[in-house]
């Protein structure tokens, strides 16, 4: 075997080991969700001796569907608003010449450093004054834009070929028409990347709903799963908790699979230019 083959073999061995390491908790969660509470307590084997979907049946009764729906609605709204606002803000910072642009950008960069815990109480007070406590709107409005993704989009548009926009200008395209007909379609990879991360972030968000939402029917999935965990943890019903967790990651997984191709092609915008 040549040196290159050995190097490839070693590389694949390392990557396989890393994949197994990453997948191990996920596989453990699936296997646990298929066990009975007694089997989990005995801890005799990693593999379920008598696999059962009872945990899934139990978890899908009660308010779980409601929480799933709540999370889906909130995550979808937050993702759409973020994609719209972050993209427009990033585009404006990259393309428009206006007084104080540099200062505004630097101020935004400074604000990234402020931990979200610091802004949580002021945000709660604002939400309370608006009368939005215990509504999904409270989570949606306080998560509608993200400086990190404004920065990401700004960097994307800084490297976006200006000549294509100039060609559109010569073709009679105004700023808004240009943005929606030329720029956005070409920014699909960046939009998909942003959408996946925002959706994942808000889907897994726990602190914000915990602070803003108190009615069980309004719970988001993370709150619901936490409630389930509290309810069953002492009786070793880890199968229920794991079943809930597995179901909760399915939407993110399917979204990632759907947008994977665009996600991987974030830098491929060059086919219109040389």
């Amino acid at each position, binding site marked *: 075997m040549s040196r290159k083959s050995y190097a490839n073999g070693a590389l694949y061995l390392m990557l396989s080991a890393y994949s197994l390491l990453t997948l191990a908790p996920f596989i453990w969660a699936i296997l646990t969700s298929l066990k009975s509470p007694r089997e989990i307590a005995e801890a005799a084997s990693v593999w379920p001796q008598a696999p059962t979907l009872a945990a899934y049946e139990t978890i899908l009764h009660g308010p779980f569907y409601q929480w799933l729906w709540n999370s889906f609605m909130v995550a979808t709204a937050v993702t759409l608003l973020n994609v719209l606002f972050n993209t427009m803000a990033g585009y404006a910072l990259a393309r428009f010449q206006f007084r104080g642009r540099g200062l505004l950008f630097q101020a935004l960069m400074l604000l990234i450093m402020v931990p979200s815990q610091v802004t949580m109480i002021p945000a709660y007070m604002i939400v309370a004054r608006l009368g939005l406590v215990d509504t999904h709107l409270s989570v949606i409005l306080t998560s509608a834009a993200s400086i990190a993704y404004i920065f990401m989009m700004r960097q994307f548009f800084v490297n976006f070929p200006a000549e294509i926009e*100039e060609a*559109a*200008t*010569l073709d009679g*395209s105004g700023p808004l*028409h240009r943005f929606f007909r*030329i720029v956005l379609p070409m920014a699909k990879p960046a939009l998909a990347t942003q959408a996946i991360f925002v959706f994942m972030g808000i889907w897994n968000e726990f602190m914000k709903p915990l602070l803003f939402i108190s009615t069980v029917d309004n719970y988001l999935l993370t709150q619901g799963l936490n409630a389930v965990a509290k309810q069953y943890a002492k009786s070793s019903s880890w199968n229920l908790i794991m079943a809930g967790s597995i179901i909760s990651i399915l939407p993110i997984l399917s979204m990632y699979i759907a947008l994977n191709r665009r996600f991987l092609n974030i830098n491929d915008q060059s086919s219109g*230019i040389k």
Partner: protein
Amino acid sequence: MTQVILRNIALAYHGQPVLNDINLEIAPGEFCVFIGPSGCGKSSLLRLIAGLEEVSDGILSIDGRTINDVPPAERNIAMVFQSYALYPHMTVYDNMAFGLTRQKLARAEIERRVMEAARILQLEPLLARKPGALSGGQRQRVAIGRAIVKKPKVFLFDEPLSNLDASLRAQTRLEIARLHRELNSASMIYVTHDQVEAMTLADKIVLLRPAADAQGRSNVAQIGTPLELYHQPANLFAAKFIGTPAMNFLNASLAALTPDGISALLQGRACPVAVDGAELAADAALTLGIRPEHMVLGQGGWQGKIVHIEALGEHSYVHLDWADGQPTLIAKTQDEGLRLGETVAFALPAAALHAFRSDGVALRRLQFKPST
């Protein structure tokens, strides 16, 4: 009627002058090429005509209408970008139809124009493809097609061939020349740094120099036909820029005025030059110039030692070290028998010599008859 007029045009970025005092007239159907070194502002001047840059001073008009403040889309121009700038998410057809759709033309008219342009540019089989599935040459043709369909009064080309390989460049150059003949009522303004493109395509060449070299004067070093710029450069800048290899220069001074021009003092010897030196002061410092192809090897009263030979097959360029304090001369020759280190005689024909004053301005050549 003159199609494009530029009067005292100036362009500055953040107070830094880029273009200064540009005066130019381009006739209908005329093929005008902007040429000059990097950073001379030739692309900026084109973008200024397109409306992608704002005029800092002066008047810009197309077809008798001042367009300084007219939006780019209403200037009746079309531009072909260096990078093609096609819309990658649209098909070739949609790329060409986009501007017409914005003009709100009828669907049938749009289709007619696109199909006509596709026929001229042989793009018919590619209309349903997206730019990503096209070769560089095909993308360039789509970019040209996108300009043609708009039926503009002025075509603007910004180094459209610079991304193509040598053979495709020659082929596309011919296509552009053919297109110019077919669309003979439209003016074409073409930016390039390639002298071959400029010399072969242009009716008129505008040679630009960087603002730093212009020293407050106009950036335009010379305007003329390709052969005028080659045979009668107006100044040292034009003489240095036009021609490959560049013109040879020799340091000299005025010895005397003669009936056939002047006698220059070159390395202590008299050298006749057929230029009009009537306005020169006595002993005025001069720079003489001669193109490599006009040097005559193997005869004449001058001698030089061969320090380098560039054999190109068809001909050779011989570098001659001939006098202390004088730049090395380059001579074009068909003689393949010359050897490195050999001393050869050469002549500087009076009719082939150019002469420039100390301020760089060329003296009028007396025996040169422009063929225009």
